[in-house]
């Protein structure tokens, strides 16, 4: 299969009301759009309340994801319940989208054992705090499911800084060689804590790195839940069809403090 250069233009569905008109996503009903909105509101509310909870000293630490909601909602809405999610600490509340109780996630931030869960209960892996080390886990699970003849996919969420880590390279390379059905979802918010993207990589785009693994790389507006959904759905379909992983670079801006 020929390896094409990564897409560099940002995919968008939601227009800006001026030069870029609104687009459409095939297969989404009005109920789907309402559900996407409900999930966006849920994550934003969780995030805002958790920041306050942290500032009150009731949890020891907290990773804000303000502005990441559309990536998490759109990316997971393209999955089936049997598909596995591998979150980083920036996606701490993603289990809520699978019905996990808020108390479980909040207990995790409190360092309480009630915050541990059986990943198989929700098909949500443990929140990964080390940078990028869950990428090989996701690749391995996806490959294992493929070997068993199951149609399950996996998605790994990570930040722009993770693309400089060895674990990201190992996981992406392994997934590509084994044609593992995994979506490598990079939430590029331009900042790895305090390191700007310009000091992170010499690549013009993070999606360009996909070419080195022989897989498709796409860029999408990370604030456009519909574009994220559509790009992830395509990636999942590729995975289920035996065509291996896709690297999605969802571009946003880290406008909240780390």
């Amino acid at each position, binding site marked *: 299969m020929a390896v094409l250069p990564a897409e560099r233009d940002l995919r968008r569905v939601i227009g800006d009301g001026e030069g870029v008109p609104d687009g459409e996503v095939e297969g989404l009903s009005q109920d789907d759009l309402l559900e996407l909105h409900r999930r966006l509101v849920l994550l*934003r509310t969780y995030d805002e309340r958790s920041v306050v909870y942290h500032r009150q000293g009731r949890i020891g630490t907290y990773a804000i994801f303000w502005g990441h909601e559309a990536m998490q909602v759109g990316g997971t809405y393209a999955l089936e319940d049997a598909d596995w999610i591998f979150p980083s600490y920036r996606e701490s509340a993603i289990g809520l989208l699978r019905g996990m*109780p808020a*108390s479980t996630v909040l*207990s995790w931030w409190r360092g*309480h*054992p009630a915050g541990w869960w059986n990943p198989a209960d929700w098909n949500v892996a443990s929140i990964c705090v080390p940078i990028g080390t869950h990428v090989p886990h996701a690749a391995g699970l996806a490959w294992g499911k493929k070997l068993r003849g199951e149609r399950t996919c996996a998605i790994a969420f990570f930040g722009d800084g993770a693309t400089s880590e060895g674990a990201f390279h190992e996981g992406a390379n392994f997934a590509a060689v084994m044609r593992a059905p995994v979506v490598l979802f990079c939430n590029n918010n331009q900042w790895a804590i305090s390191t700007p993207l310009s000091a992170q990589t010499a690549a013009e785009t993070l999606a360009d790195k996909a070419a080195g693994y022989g897989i498709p790389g796409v860029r999408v507006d990370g604030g456009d839940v519909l574009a994220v959904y559509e790009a992830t759905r395509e990636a999942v379909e590729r995975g289920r069809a035996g065509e291996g992983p896709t690297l999605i670079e969802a571009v946003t801006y880290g406008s909240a403090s780390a």
Partner: protein
Amino acid sequence: MRADAAQLMRDGIAAAEAEPPADPELLFSHAFADPPASFDADLAELRRVLGG
């Protein structure tokens, strides 16, 4: 929608804070294949310090 999410958070915070304190042994029980000889005494000392 916003009110529902806020209520979910209030309920979640209340439930999380209602959890009884964890047994400090949990921190160590999975850490050692072969606990050191002083483990039981050290744990008893930790519990004494924590007031448990």
